[in-house]
């Protein structure tokens, strides 16, 4: 049974998807979320270290699990952030044929990509991030943490 009681944001570790150097932020984001796509324009340009953690909200964005699996599979071939950037940049083209176009564009092994994105390991990896976000109190996406505390959730009027 999964423990989803409160816990601090896990520190950045060797298994995290990280880019950049210096002071770090951890971003819990949904690849199907328009607010995340909008925020990514700024986050991607942000200097310093950024760790991306999966937070697909499937009920709201049914395509999200597939997109996170695709990013994870691309990451297995060294192109995690390239895939994330592409998925946020062109949200209208995220069906399987569009994913395969991206795989070709990134020069990835398509068979391996297809195998990896459907693997139990990929599902578990995405779920692990999601659960850590739940435990940390993520209540909307994107959720940005510095080393210890929540920095921001997307602004919205009630």
């Amino acid at each position, binding site marked *: *049974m999964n423990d989803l*009681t*409160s816990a601090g944001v896990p520190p950045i570790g060797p298994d995290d998807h990280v880019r950049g150097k210096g002071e770090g932020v951890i971003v819990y984001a949904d690849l199907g979320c328009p607010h995340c796509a909008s925020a990514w324009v700024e986050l991607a340009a942000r200097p310093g270290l950024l760790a991306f953690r999966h937070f697909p909200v499937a*009920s*709201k964005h049914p395509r999200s699990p597939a997109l996170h699996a695709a990013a994870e599979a691309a990451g297995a071939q060294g192109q995690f952030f390239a895939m994330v950037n592409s998925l946020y940049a062109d949200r209208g083209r995220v069906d399987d044929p569009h994913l395969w176009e991206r795989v070709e564009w990134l020069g990835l092994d398509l068979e391996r990509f297809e195998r990896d994105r459907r693997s139990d390991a990929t599902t578990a990896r995405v779920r692990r991030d999601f659960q850590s976000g739940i435990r*940390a*109190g993520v*209540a*909307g996406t994107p959720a940005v943490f510095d080393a210890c505390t929540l920095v921001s959730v997307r602004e919205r009027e*009630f």
Partner: protein
Amino acid sequence: MIAAGEPAPDFTLRDQDGEEVSLADFRGGKVLLVFYPMDFSPVCSDQLSIYQEVKPEIAEKGVEMLGISVDHPYAHKAFQEKLGIDTPLLADFEPKGEVARAYGSYLDGLGFANRTLVLVDEEGTVAWAHESLSPGEFPGANVIFDALAS
């Protein structure tokens, strides 16, 4: 705001399909009442969507989850479909907010319930209650699991 140890006021409300649902129907099991302001507001969408993602884990602990707002069943049906959730949504519609008032969650002047969680135990007693500081802030799902673990 209702407190732990108090009897949970019984109620009968219509769900998104127009079917009557009573709190007493769940006697013998735990129920999590999720009072929220209104359908289709941005924060409510996040709240119920995120709770949906961990609904299996909540159900594993023997808890049924019910959403309650002042919206009509027609709005609840559309909201459920829009969000892709299957949490029953109950209409505290007429008299408006009567159940929310009974639980101390209704916000007079605003016309809807504050964002409130109430865990009712098998005997119909409030085991735990949590109220957000404002309707614009919703408790993460971790708060629910903290309550279930205590």
